[in-house]
């Protein structure tokens, strides 16, 4: 390095160099499964970032009043059940680079799909060094 800034850990390993950028959380927002609309994220640059969906596991079902008593379930079985019916579909997302707006539509089921679950979800936008295309 001729100039710039570097970080090293206490073992002397180079943890940040000037060809890199610190990954950062640009935006995060929770959406209902049936949300339809747009989301503006002006700070997000798709050349240097990525977004992804984190589905929420059955908040409506497992947090409903009387769930434990009604089904005679324990916390243990409830947590295991987070994945009990995990055949879900992802929402439709379309990012516009020029306007920096995401268009969002609910998931649609493919033909023959044997499940019926569409989950609430978080949409996370991450800044990082570089995105490349296949």
């Amino acid at each position: 390095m001729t100039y710039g800034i570097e970080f090293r850990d206490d073992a002397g390993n180079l943890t940040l160099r000037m060809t890199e950028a610190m990954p950062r959380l640009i935006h995060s927002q929770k959406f209902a499964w049936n949300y339809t609309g747009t989301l503006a994220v002006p700070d997000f640059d798709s050349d240097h970032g990525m977004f992804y969906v984190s589905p929420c596991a059955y908040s409506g079902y497992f947090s409903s009043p009387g769930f434990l008593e009604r089904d005679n379930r324990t916390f243990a079985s409830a947590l295991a059940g987070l994945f009990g019916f995990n055949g879900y579909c992802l929402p439709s997302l379309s990012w516009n680079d020029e306007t920096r707006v995401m268009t969002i539509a609910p998931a649609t089921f493919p033909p023959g799909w044997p499940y019926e679950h569409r989950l609430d979800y978080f949409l996370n936008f991450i800044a990082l060094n570089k995105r490349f295309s296949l």
Partner: protein
Amino acid sequence: MTYGLEILNNYGVPVFDMDHPCLVVKYSGLTQSMARPEPSPTGFAPQWEFAGTAGSYVALPGGMAWDIERGPSTDTMIKPVIPANASPQDTVFYQLGTTWCVYAIEVVTSLDPGFGIPEACMGVTTIPDLPFKVAGPITDTEASTGWGMQIFGDAGELLFDSNCEFLAIRYSFIVPQAVIDDILANGTVVDVALPEAMPECWIACPIWSHQEYGLDRVGAGPTYYYLRRFVEFSQVDASTIRLRRRQTEEAWSTPRTTFAYSHDAIFYVARNIP
């Protein structure tokens, strides 16, 4: 920027900014396997217990029931991870090496109210003894004291702390749905060339599931054979991530419906810091 710190890297990209928290490593370790359960008549057997505080969930013998229906039947289930300081914005990175990963998924636990645990990312994969790191936005919980460098935002929130462990997340890429479909349908092998050599890199693929195709092979009982196809990936050398098809045939006592589902897949790749 009217005030504060701005550092651009060699490509003119901000290394930090004054508005957004950096991602730090919150939790790391090796994935732990659980014995694969037999299907139970009631659907779910108690397989988890709650030790009282967030981050102290432990798995009971027996694994998780969910994969009875979903995953390739030859895989071991792995104990999900919920670190104490977890958040819905966390991402789990795995150091695969040449191991093939057919299942890696993150969901946000959303059990409140009623269970007393926060919304948090939980990662699950199917590979035992696999190094993992959970990276998420830095909070005041990760703040250190003593020497080093910290950056705070307008509201005094911690955005960066040089004493934290970071993942050098270098690149991301999308595998388009059409590519996934080609792998599933035709068995095409796809090599993703990384822009630089990244030996033993850390890979996150937040939603790596449901890339599958199922097909009834025999339509008469009492046993129905069902062909399932998945896409799996691995780092085959320092500069290449390979995607290929895995195909299994499963026996069922009832007929299944043919279906297919795929979607764009998102990858993050971090260089290994020895």
